[in-house]
């Protein structure tokens, strides 16, 4: 029962008093209203909020967001329902974005390190002095070749202004590298597109319309490429239309949460995923499966492939291969996806090519339910998305640093000391650089070795634009705008670059002549005004600038898919490239499988308490750091859950508690990346653990120069200690601590 809102407490007491008197005279039974003495949750009155549209920057995907703000404070992030990529949806990392803004460990102003680099003794530094100091360092360089810029997930406009600055100086272009991009194989995929389709744009897979999806190590429901867009499509594939339910088959050595959602999980021998694709292709061509007509033109692709050999090398029975070939070829609409795990092997390019070739064999390139290419930016300026460099190119920079050829290093949204394999030698390299500047909003592992930290705004305080890649089913350009005023005395890195150019004068001032970053953006974005494709139209550039921010970007009203055009690479026999691994199989019997955490990603989420507290979906571990091994392997080593083991590779070692994991090959040791921070704030440092990048051999796929992060062998040694992980799951079956 309840009271109408118009009755006050005092009136109620009067009525209640009357009622009790009344009951004294009659025998009628009546119920008494229980009035809470405070408002129950259902009677709270919501405050008035203002919503701002912007872009999520927690990963490279570029989902549209809307942010609820009250009294100038951001209160909740949600997906932008109008945005063609994520259609109102957001992942765990996107939801946690408020804690990037309100992180208690953010730098509140520019700082210089006074106790020497690595001392962690910082002193506030007046911004104009910081810019004067940096511009004098640039001016004092004996040669502009001695200037290097290392970036990670940089905002597009900051990247472009950086490129302009470096170009005007005559310095080398920025080197872009981050661990997440390496784990998802971004640069390798781009090179594959270039080879197959003559364009570097990333493929986009039409999952929602597909009846059969073969995913080769693509963790498409976790962190790979554009996980929210892919999850939206996955939901539609499962239950989106009556009477149809798509089939998902996942090939990978460890059952990921994507594999948990799949109908079939095929635990392939590491590095042999391409062999599975070759065998399936060979069977389709040989047995003339499917309904594409003749496979004659494709026979050449598989002329060297022997199905039995491929089966033996991949650990997948011939019958399974035959069954999968039939299911794949007979489907009305099917697609094969070469994922990140493939790119992390020394035969990565060959494997990815073999998988992409399956889409050719069943004629699903540029077809509904198949694969398309992402739309690039609709104008010349917007087409210059930050490219991801290869690991080889990073190693070249490290070599130059070690040789003392770099005098000034600038770092933006990159944390190479955490994200690169320790064996890559970045630590020795940075020590040789006389002056290092970081633009990180928090003190991360690399910023500790900087002379100056000039903190950029966090993304909810920033301007920007982004062409999402992989994209949506139509041309899209995201807008980013501050949803709150900057909390602290931080400065947009783009404005730092413009300030430097103005100070240095001459060619630089001419190349970067904008008053501030917002006027640069307004000019760049105005190129979109007047396009006949747009979902909205404005009469004036100012009107467009307003709508651009209100909508959270610009996109085509109609679906425009980009059909790839094939190059002649597909007329030669596909290579059968053997995988190679670092470490002798006798000494190091296991394959190391580092993987991107669904909550912490490559570690950039580790300073957000919401993400630390959120359980890993497969192990249900919270806050912790662990090593996954097969039950049989554990029995062989005589170890059980929570036993601490030492994992050792030819390049390094680390310790962590064991999680016995039923869904993993017995020859695999899987470790999530993301924990083991030495710096990066209280929440990241609260977790006991090590960074598995200490184990990874700095080897590459010679075809792409990409880091072969899955090509290291390790051994395990129990150290006779137990360290109990915090897990949502109860191992003893007693459930959580009794609430009673």
């Amino acid at each position, binding site marked *: *029962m*309840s009271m109408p809102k118009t009755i006050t407490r005092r009136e109620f007491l009067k009525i209640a008093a009357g009622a009790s008197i009344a009951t004294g005279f009659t025998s009628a039974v009546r119920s008494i209203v229980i009035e*809470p003495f*405070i408002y*129950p*949750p*259902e009677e709270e*009155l*919501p405050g008035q909020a203002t919503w701002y549209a912007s872009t999520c920057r927690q990963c490279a995907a570029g989902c549209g967001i809307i942010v609820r703000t*009250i009294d100038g*404070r951001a209160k*909740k992030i949600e*997906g932008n329902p109008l945005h063609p990529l*994520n259609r109102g*949806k*957001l*992942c*765990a*990392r996107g*939801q946690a974005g408020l*804690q990037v803004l*309100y992180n*208690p460990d953010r730098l509140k102003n520019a700082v210089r390190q006074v106790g020497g680099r690595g001392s962690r003794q910082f002193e506030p530094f007046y911004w104009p002095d910081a810019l004067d100091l940096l511009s004098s360092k640039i001016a004092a360089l004996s040669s502009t070749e001695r200037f290097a810029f290392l970036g990670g997930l940089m905002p597009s406009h900051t990247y472009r202004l950086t490129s302009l600055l470096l170009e005007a100086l005559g310095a080398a272009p920025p080197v872009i590298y981050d661990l997440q991009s390496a784990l998802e194989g971004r640069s390798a995929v781009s090179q594959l597109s270039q080879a197959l389709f003559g364009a570097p744009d990333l493929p986009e897979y039409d999952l929602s319309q597909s009846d059969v999806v073969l995913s080769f190590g693509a963790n498409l*429901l976790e962190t790979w490429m554009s*996980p*929210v867009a892919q999850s*939206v499509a996955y*939901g539609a594939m499962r*239950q989106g239309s009556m009477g149809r*339910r798509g089939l998902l088959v996942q090939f990978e050595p460890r*059952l990921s*949460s994507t594999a*948990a*959602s799949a109908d079939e999980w095929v*635990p392939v021998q590491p590095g042999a995923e391409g062999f599975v694709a070759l065998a399936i292709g060979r069977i389709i061509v040989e047995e003339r499966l499917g309904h594409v007509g003749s496979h004659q033109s494709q026979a050449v692709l598989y002329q060297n492939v022997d199905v039995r050999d491929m089966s033996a090398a991949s650990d997948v029975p011939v019958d399974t291969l035959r069954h999968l070939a039939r299911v794949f070829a007979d489907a009305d609409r099917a697609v094969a996806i070469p994922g990140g795990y493939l790119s992390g092997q020394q035969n990565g390019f060959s494997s990815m090519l073999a998988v992409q070739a399956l889409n050719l064999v069943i004629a699903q390139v540029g077809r509904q339910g198949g694969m398309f290419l992402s739309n690039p930016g609709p104008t010349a300026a917007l087409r210059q998305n930050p490219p991801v460099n290869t690991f080889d190119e990073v190693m070249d920079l490290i070599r130059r640093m070690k040789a003392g050829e770099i005098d000034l290093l600038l770092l933006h949204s990159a944390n190479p000391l955490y994200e690169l394999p320790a064996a890559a030698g970045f630590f020795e390299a940075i020590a040789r650089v006389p002056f290092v500047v970081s633009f990180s909003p928090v003190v991360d592992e690399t910023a500790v070795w900087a002379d100056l930290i000039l903190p950029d705004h966090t993304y909810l305080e920033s301007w920007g634009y982004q062409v999402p890649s992989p994209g949506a089913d139509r041309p899209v350009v995201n807008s980013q705008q501050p949803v709150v005023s900057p*909390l602290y005395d931080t400065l947009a890195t783009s404005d730092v670059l413009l300030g430097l150019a103005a100070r240095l004068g001459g060619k630089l001032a001419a190349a970067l002549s904008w008053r501030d970053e917002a006027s640069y953006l307004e000019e760049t974005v105005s190129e979109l005004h007047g396009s006949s494709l747009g979902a909205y139209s404005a009469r004036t550039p100012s009107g467009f600038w307003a709508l651009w921010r209100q909508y959270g970007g610009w996109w085509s009203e109609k679906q425009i898919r980009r059909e790839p055009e094939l190059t002649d690479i597909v007329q030669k026999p596909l290579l059968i490239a053997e995988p190679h691994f670092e470490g002798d199989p006798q000494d190091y019997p296991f394959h190391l499988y580092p993987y991107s955490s669904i*909550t912490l990603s490559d570690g950039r989420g580790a300073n957000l*308490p*919401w*993400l*630390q*507290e*959120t*359980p890993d*979906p497969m192990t249900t571990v919270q*806050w*912790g750091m662990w090593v996954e091994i*097969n039950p049989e392997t554990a029995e062989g080593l005589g170890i059980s859950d929570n036993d601490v083991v030492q994992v050792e590779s030819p390049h390094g070692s680390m310790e962590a508690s064991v999680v016995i994991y*039923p*869904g993993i090959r*017995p020859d695999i040791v899987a470790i999530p990346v993301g924990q083991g921070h030495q710096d990066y704030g209280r929440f990241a440092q*609260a977790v006991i653990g090590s960074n598995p990048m200490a184990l990874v051999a700095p080897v590459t796929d010679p075809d792409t120069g990409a880091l072969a992060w899955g090509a290291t062998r390790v051994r395990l040694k129990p150290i006779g200690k137990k360290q109990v*992980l*915090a*897990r949502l*799951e109860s191992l003893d079956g007693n*459930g959580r*601590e009794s*609430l*009673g």
Partner: protein
Amino acid sequence: MVMDANLSVETSRRWVLVVDLDRCTGCQACVVACHAENNVPVVGEKQAGYGRWMHWIIIQRYWEGEYPNVKARFMPVMCQQCTEAPCEPVCPVFATYHNEEGLNAQIYNRCIGTRFCGSACPYKVRTYNWYAPEFPEPLTEQLNPDVTVRTRGIMEKCTFCIQRIRRIEIDAHAAGRIPADGEIQPACVQTCPSNGLFFGNLDDPDSQVSQLARGRRSFRLLPELGTEPGVIYLKGGETNV
């Protein structure tokens, strides 16, 4: 809420949440969205290890079979908003009660922390504030002003985001209309990337949740207990041939 002159309450709503297990990928987006929307505290590794975590929604994971024929299944579990709620009659101070829309509501200021409701709950979805929540500055800025911040000694649980229900209802009322089916979305439903969660009125036979509830895949958790939950699950796997 429509009320007549005799103070009797007329309601035509029974809020239910439908969880489609065939779409759930275990991604945890709902878990974080719920923390953000409902000011759910974070307890840290040590307390989480004791099982004192505060999530209002969890994704349970079940292993089936043995390698290599092994499967893992996810099941999001939150307060089931039972029609016959075992948590309600045991509260000595009427802090947990049943409202007209079929929700089990909790009046935090009444709660004295006996934890009887948590013991009575067969779904184990109530969480208890063993300590005062900590929000190191400026993390207090993230707090949703529409939701009370609970303190030490208080029981709490999923409310179906009652503040979001009210927000839409008040806006719709001001505009002189009734909220459309699907317009009201708790934070978990709003964010779910694979569209695996649905929210709506079971008393409206045309609503999406009603249609889903009538489907062959629908079931409820521990139906033998007679709690008549307001959360309806749809089976996953190969059931939709």
